[in-house]
């Protein structure tokens, strides 16, 4: 009788199981799948560039679409002459500030709104109204307020990022399961501890989504600002090149923007993967 009572758990549950052959084979097949996809991605990329190169000057006038080789040459010159860094640094600087400010304010307000139903209800119509303004339309106002320097670009970028992060954080905080809140309260958590141990980690998935979506928008904010009035920055380069009908330079600017956005996104994806590793 006592045997059954003391050894109800069989051996093997005491620790994780070893990797079996089937596991090894499965993992190998996953690696193969990833490799095939990578190769296909490269093939598609090369095909697009190749088509562009061939079409340029034959199907479409070179004046409108330049060509990959010309764009590559232009980019190379930019790097060698230091043009790239001179303009890219200012755009990145404005973008990072806009992104950081916008997401910090959005995160904080999203949190407060998410925790207080009254605050959320009172401010809701105003937030909605502001949200509905096309943010680009604020650019002239920001230039009046902050001048034609970098501050107006940061403000532009931060405004766009703010709404995205704010709305996502708000939803994330509202979405926290009451089961976790209840259980942690019973264990004796204070409001602050509750925030730290339950609400913040639970909302993290939403917040990260908001941040990821914000990356390209923070670039939009800065570039629009640079289009309107500036003498440095990738946006300025593009505007200037189009004024000179230099299509290769316009495309080069676009390529740089695409690379910056993709790089930031990849970095955030890494962070997300680490922070949300508990989702398995």
């Amino acid at each position, binding site marked *: *009788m*006592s045997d*059954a*009572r*003391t050894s*109800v*758990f069989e051996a093997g*549950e*005491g*620790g*994780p199981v070893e990797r079996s052959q089937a596991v090894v084979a499965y993992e190998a097949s996953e690696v193969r799948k990833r490799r095939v996809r990578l190769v296909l991605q490269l093939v598609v990329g090369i095909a697009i560039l190749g088509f562009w190169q061939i079409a340029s000057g034959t199907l479409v006038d070179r004046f409108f679409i330049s060509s990959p080789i010309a764009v590559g040459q232009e980019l190379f010159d930019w790097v060698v002459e230091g043009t790239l860094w001179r303009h890219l640094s200012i755009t990145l600087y404005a973008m990072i500030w806009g992104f950081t400010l916008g997401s910090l304010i959005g995160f904080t307000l999203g949190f407060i709104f998410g925790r207080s139903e009254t605050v959320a209800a009172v401010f809701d119509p105003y937030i909605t109204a502001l949200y509905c303004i096309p943010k680009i339309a604020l650019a002239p106002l920001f230039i009046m307020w902050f001048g034609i320097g970098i501050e107006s670009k940061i403000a532009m970028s931060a405004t766009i990022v703010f709404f995205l992060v704010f709305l996502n954080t708000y939803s994330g905080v509202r979405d926290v399961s009451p*089961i*976790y809140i*209840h*259980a*942690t*309260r*019973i*264990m*004796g*958590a*204070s409001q602050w*501890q509750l925030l730290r*141990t*339950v609400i913040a*980690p*639970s909302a*993290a998935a939403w917040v990260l989504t908001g941040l990821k979506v914000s990356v390209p928008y923070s670039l939009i904010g800065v570039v629009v600002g640079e289009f309107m009035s500036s003498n440095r920055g990738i946006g300025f380069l593009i505007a200037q090149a189009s004024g000179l009908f230099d299509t290769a330079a316009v495309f080069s600017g676009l390529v740089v923007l695409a690379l910056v956005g993709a790089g930031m996104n990849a970095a955030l994806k890494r962070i997300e993967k680490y922070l*949300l*590793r*508990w*989702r*398995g």
Partner: protein
Amino acid sequence: MSIVVDQVVKRFVSRGREVLALENVDLEIEDGEFVAFVGPSGCGKSTLLNMFAGILSPNSGTILHDGRTIEGINRRVGYMTQADSLLPWRTVLRNVQLPLELQGVGRREAQSRARALLEKVDLAGFADHFPIELSGGMRKRVAIAQVLVYDPGTLLMDEPLGALDAQLKVIMQAELMRIWEETGKTVVFVTHDLVEAITLAQRVIVFSGRPGRIKHIARIDIPRPRDVFKVRFQPEFQQYYEALWAELAPEISKGEAV
């Protein structure tokens, strides 16, 4: 005396109607006693448990726990519910540590106490796993470790095994029995399963349908240690079952008729 309930009344307002959940309930639970609450759903048995935990307060009457009136969250109890309340973003070890962390116990001590408890529920090898990587039964054992880690004198359990399949349920009952016998804690166990109540408890308390009142109290004198796998086949078990069912059945049909 661990818990003394004196003339407790609890009302709720829902959808513009007043519902009397508990009406003049009196009850005394001894130190180290294992008590089971059974009754139809909505009879107020979980409400009473929530009042022991200090999540709800009575409209009138008093509840004493270890001689003190319960006011606000009662940190001297461990509370386990049917819901899977482990935080999915914390590893097993950090989940078990959580109540200690919240009470300001140092990280080192918290960790070693949590590890000791994981050892006790046979999950030492899973300390660094996330809950999603565990089976339902393993998660329940982590939850048990989490309630035991800060060593509360009283355990409140609201259908803790309700979500488990029949076999696992019996295994977990055995585990619970073993822990109770080892630690001598007071356990208040809410269940809708009469077999579970008779198997585990020293006293089974039957609640009437709404308004919740204590209808009947049965002392279960089946000798210990009980073998949870076999006790249900003993003749005296059958007698308790029939007697309690006779008390419970009309309450359940009463609820259904409304």
